[in-house]
């Protein structure tokens, strides 16, 4: 028994090593200066330039037009991540509410129509979506960045399943208590869905945060750059004798990883609660 435990731990430690090593290397490399990285490749030791690199990365105006700082990119990523998550939750909750609680013509058909959009991710409809946004003049706006991505079959489906598990008696008790459809939603369903909302927020925030293709298409002004795009941008300046700021690219990568990791770590217990048990 004891032996298997040691082996188990070795396997787990190996897993941790595989997962963590690239992150550690990226972080260590980001603390060296660009020349070091250029000459000696990836680093696994502390380079001592932590403050310089990160300060410069956050404040120095970079990019082609020299307009965008790291801090700006962090903000953009946050706007995209939060806007995306909040918008998706609001929209899919309302859709699920309609599907579960209102008997309207062809409700089932509508549900399956929403459901089949799972088979049509953004990449499939990217050209028509872009076309629509251009015609609406929403290129280079946050609205254009966020709105076309909001409709979410996943979210709608999650909330539908959850609402279906809410006992009918709660609705009936609320009706007798004089709560109309709106009140029932706000007073009863939304508070009951709290853990569910938290879980979906995490998933959607990370998803929005990591968007690459769509922002690249929708925004060409550098003031709209997100972190994920910024990393690429830094490496693009390798012209002539100029050395790309490898250290800053790694610093950006670390920074881009940080918020999703933090959110998952902090909300982990909520996340598990939301997906496994219900607060009824």
């Amino acid at each position, binding site marked *: 028994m004891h032996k298997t435990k040691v082996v188990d731990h070795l396997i787990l430690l190996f897993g941790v090593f595989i997962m963590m090593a690239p992150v550690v290397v990226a972080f260590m490399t980001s603390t060296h200066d660009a020349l070091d990285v250029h000459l000696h490749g990836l680093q696994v030791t502390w380079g001592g330039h932590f403050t310089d690199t990160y300060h410069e990365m956050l404040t120095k105006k970079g990019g082609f037009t020299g307009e965008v700082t790291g801090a700006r990119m962090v903000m953009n990523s946050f706007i995209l991540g939060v806007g995306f998550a909040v918008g998706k939750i609001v929209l899919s909750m309302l859709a699920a509410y309609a599907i579960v609680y209102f008997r309207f013509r062809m409700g089932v058909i509508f549900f399956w129509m929403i459901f089949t959009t799972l088979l049509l991710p953004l990449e499939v409809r990217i050209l028509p979506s872009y076309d629509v946004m251009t015609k609406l003049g929403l290129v280079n706006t946050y609205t254009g960045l966020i709105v076309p991505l909001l409709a979410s079959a996943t979210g709608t489906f999650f909330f539908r399943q959850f609402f279906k598990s809410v006992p009918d008696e709660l609705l009936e008790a609320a009706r007798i208590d*004089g709560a109309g459809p709106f009140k029932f939603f706000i007073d009863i369903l939304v508070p*009951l869905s709290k853990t569910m909302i938290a879980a979906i927020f995490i998933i959607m925030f990370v998803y929005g945060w990591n968007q690459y293709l769509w922002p690249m298409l929708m925004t060409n002004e550098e003031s709209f750059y997100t972190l994920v795009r910024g990393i690429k941008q830094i490496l693009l300046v390798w012209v002539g004798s100029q050395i790309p700021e490898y250290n800053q690219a790694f610093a950006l990568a670390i920074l881009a990883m940080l918020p999703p990791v933090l959110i998952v770590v902090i909300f982990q217990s909520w996340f598990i609660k939301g997906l496994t048990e219900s607060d009824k």
Partner: protein
Amino acid sequence: MAQVTIENVSKSYAGDVRAVNSVSIAIEDGEFIVLVGPSGCGKSTLLRMVAGLESVTEGTIRIGERTVNEVEPAERDIAMVFQNYALYPHMTVRQNLAYGLKNRGTPKAEIDKRVAEASRILELDQYLDRKPRQLSGGQRQRVAMGRAIVREPAAFLFDEPLSNLDAKLRVQMRGEIKQLQRRLATTSIYVTHDQLEAMTMADRIVVLNGGHVEQIGTPLEVYRAPQSAFVASFIGSPAMNLIAARGEGGRLVIGDQTVTMNGAEVPNGPLTLGVRAEDMALASGNGDGHVEMAIDYVEELGASRLVHGRLTDERLALSLPSGAPLSDRLSITLDPHRLHLFDPDSGRRI
């Protein structure tokens, strides 16, 4: 407080399923009515129609003088207690009690007063700031009652409110609900499948079967003079024995045995004989009109023993004092005035 009148009310679902068939009940002001019947008899559907949670297909429901067929549940001036309590899980007990009042725009001071009053009556004072999941089953049940009381409605509707409690608590809550209803004198309609709850709590019992009313009466009326074989078998524990018999020239014949009726009338032809386990006794001596019963097994209940056996080929349960002597065969007498005769085809009382 009000009368509730149910007139020729029917409920059909799509596909011609008739859940409730032309039911009429006139419920007096302050009366405690229990709707009882097996599952699927339409009792809950009927209650939900009174509550306004189901539409009425035919007929009229009146609360007080007002016809409420088309009135929203919240406007009907009723309060309902659900089987699973349906407390709002994210609200404290206080918020649960106040929610309905808040929605109708009752002034804050009035809400506080009524919540305090209800929690005092139900001894919930110390739990007001707890969430429902921190309460025991009995306490949740009280909160559900409280939510009904604070509304001060014209009628309480109970939908099997005690089914989720354990046996001991059920007996206790049964008493509490009954006392509370007496005190508030609010018209109440109570649905249950448990005949014991019906017997102990009701002013009048409505026995439902297959969507229609079998009998309406006080518990004793229903117990002593069941109007159909169904009511006879449903009300009372152990269930009344129903035995195939026939009438021959004023006597009652069961298989090859005869019961003398001492002047009670017996029509000729096939009959269903109903006799309660406690309406039979051991015969003394070898008299006329005794019937012979073969014993299969005995259930010891402490105060009495329940003897299961066969009278000719018919199953029979007989309740005897616990000290009564037993042998493989018993000679028993039936009290002719406590026998119930039913038409074997229609099941109606003769």
